[in-house]
């Protein structure tokens, strides 16, 4: 696809027309190159490994759900004046689509885990059945009477959480939130008033944008999906290093390098010409990327930093 082809296709879609096949073919090309050059790790694949069928399925699903269904293709085209910008934004969108797609399957046992935690003895309760109101041992005891909006405000106020682990070992456990993070979340929510387990789970779903309409996935399916290679094996680590580099933005890479050298946040912000809030935001996103690597994260991070500093020299 040439720049002129792109400009023509962009005009067609922005004028309300269907995306030309040439444009879709270029999107398919981007997905293929991301896969063939390890820009997407194998655990992002719907089959746990990448092959032609997996690429086709990811591409088709992205087109149907996100690009067309949610209007993201139009949004991207509005913002991308040139082909290279379009390709970069498509790559980001595809990657985000795959990450989002993994959330629902991991939310399946959330209610059970929450009830189990609430029943652990550290929390008080009154009432029975699904209407049972849980509270912290030392209160508050009054029921939380806010709407979804207020519930979400409380959930946001609890700070950042690292969600979803993808590596083989962790994925068997499917924790959307680790046990510690789930407890922090539940305690934080109950600090705003007593709640039913369903309300707490509702807060999790609102806070982490888990869509009830999406299929929640079956544990057996999830296990079947994870035909990943040995996490410790060098080829897998090598692939994850490339995928991690591909997922990091330039600024995140610089934040990561600065943080590893223990450069204070304020100084790092000055160096990068941004605010300390932006540094915090980038660090949160880096942690999310690393969390998705699960047990492999330390190996991958070391290698990523080696590569970044090696090339920096």
């Amino acid at each position, binding site marked *: 696809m040439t720049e002129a082809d792109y400009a023509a296709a962009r005009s067609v879609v922005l004028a309300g027309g269907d995306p030309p096949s040439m444009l879709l073919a270029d999107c398919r090309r981007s997905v293929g190159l*991301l896969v063939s050059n390890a820009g997407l790790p194998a655990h992002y694949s719907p089959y746990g490994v990448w092959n032609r069928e997996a690429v086709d399925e990811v591409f088709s699903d992205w087109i149907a759900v996100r690009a067309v269904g949610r*209007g993201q293709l139009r*949004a*991207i085209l509005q913002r991308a004046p040139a082909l290279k910008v379009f390709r*970069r934004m498509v790559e980001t969108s595809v990657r985000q689509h795959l990450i989002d797609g993994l959330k629902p399957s991991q939310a399946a046992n959330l209610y059970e885990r929450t009830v189990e935690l609430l029943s652990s003895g550290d929390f008080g309760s009154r009432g029975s059945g699904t209407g049972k109101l849980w509270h912290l041992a030392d209160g508050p005891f009054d029921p939380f009477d806010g709407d979804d909006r207020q519930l979400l*405000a409380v959930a946001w106020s609890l700070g950042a959480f690292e969600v979803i682990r993808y590596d083989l070992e962790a994925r068997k456990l499917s924790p959307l939130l680790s046990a510690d993070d789930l407890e922090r979340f539940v305690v934080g929510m109950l600090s705003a008033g007593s709640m039913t387990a369903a309300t707490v789970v509702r807060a999790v779903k609102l806070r982490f944008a888990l869509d009830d309409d999406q299929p929640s996935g079956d544990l057996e399916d999830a296990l079947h999906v994870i035909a990943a290679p040995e996490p410790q094996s060098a080829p897998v680590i090598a692939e994850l290093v490339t995928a991690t580099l591909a997922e990091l933005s330039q600024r995140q890479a610089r934040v990561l390098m600065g943080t590893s050298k223990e450069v204070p946040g304020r100084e790092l912000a000055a160096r990068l010409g941004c605010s300390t*809030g932006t540094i915090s*935001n980038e660090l949160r996103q880096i942690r999310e990327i690393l969390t998705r690597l699960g047990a492999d994260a330390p190996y991958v991070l070391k290698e990523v930093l080696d590569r970044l*500093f090696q090339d920096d020299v």
Partner: protein
Amino acid sequence: MTCPPFSDLCASDAATALAEHLVGCSRCRAIVARVDKTAEPASQPITVHAPYSAIRPRAGDVWTFWTSMADEYTVGAVLDANDVEVLIIPILMEATWAADEDLVLAQDVLGYVALAPVWAGDHVLAEQAVEAVDVLSEKQLGMFRNAYEAFFAGEPLPEPGGPPVLNDDDPRVAAHAAISDDLKALYSPWSLLQVADELGPVVASRRADLGVTLDDLGVDSNVWGAFEGGESDPYVAIPVPEMARVVREIGLTPSRRVLDLARASVGAHHIGENVTGAPAMARRRRGVSARGRRDPERARAAADQYADALAKELGL
């Protein structure tokens, strides 16, 4: 500047085609060093230039906006516009971080769910407007205006897009800081031209930001020093092509605002030729040459003439 797409980093000619970017980006250098190269070359480089659309945005339009400091356009809802500047609220694709000072646009508004950070509304130059991509209904424009007015009046938004931020632990605080930083590139062409009411001090401020000396620019430091100090008339002291060259070299966006500033510089300091030989003043000190009286009409005419010539030189 943002990174090229991953697919370009895999291209056969990545090392040469992307050499300029690779010099400053460890992340992309590391990727280029690792990936297998494809047979295809990298995408063609983008020619970033001012679009200069003949059509100007109007309130209620949704336009894309350009800045030389980013390769992506920003989409924005136009709240107010004239020939010089446009007041917009940016529209972002990622609505996750919506709080009570944002609007969230449902998919039926633009075709995709979007975030409009009302707190990030500001001006851009009219020359940054690229193309109209949508039009808001009266109701939607009213929603934007009401939200903007409420925010700047310190009142709650009538239809907030998200729940309030209750404390600094909320990750939306940092996310909003990042949005604000990312939007600096969009707003800086306008804000760089607001530091003074004449072009000379604006040039001085920009030069100081960049750490560029007058010698670096190859101009007469006496002439330009007086101009930057708001003490001299560029009409008589600085040729238009030289002025245009400096404007471009220090990264000021060629725009009507630049012309207005140049017009103001000439208008404030120009003295009509026919009054330089004014009658001698009784109390004039010996050795001090006569300073002509200002002729407002002639000053205005000279200012317009200079601004028109500068407009041509800048391609406006």
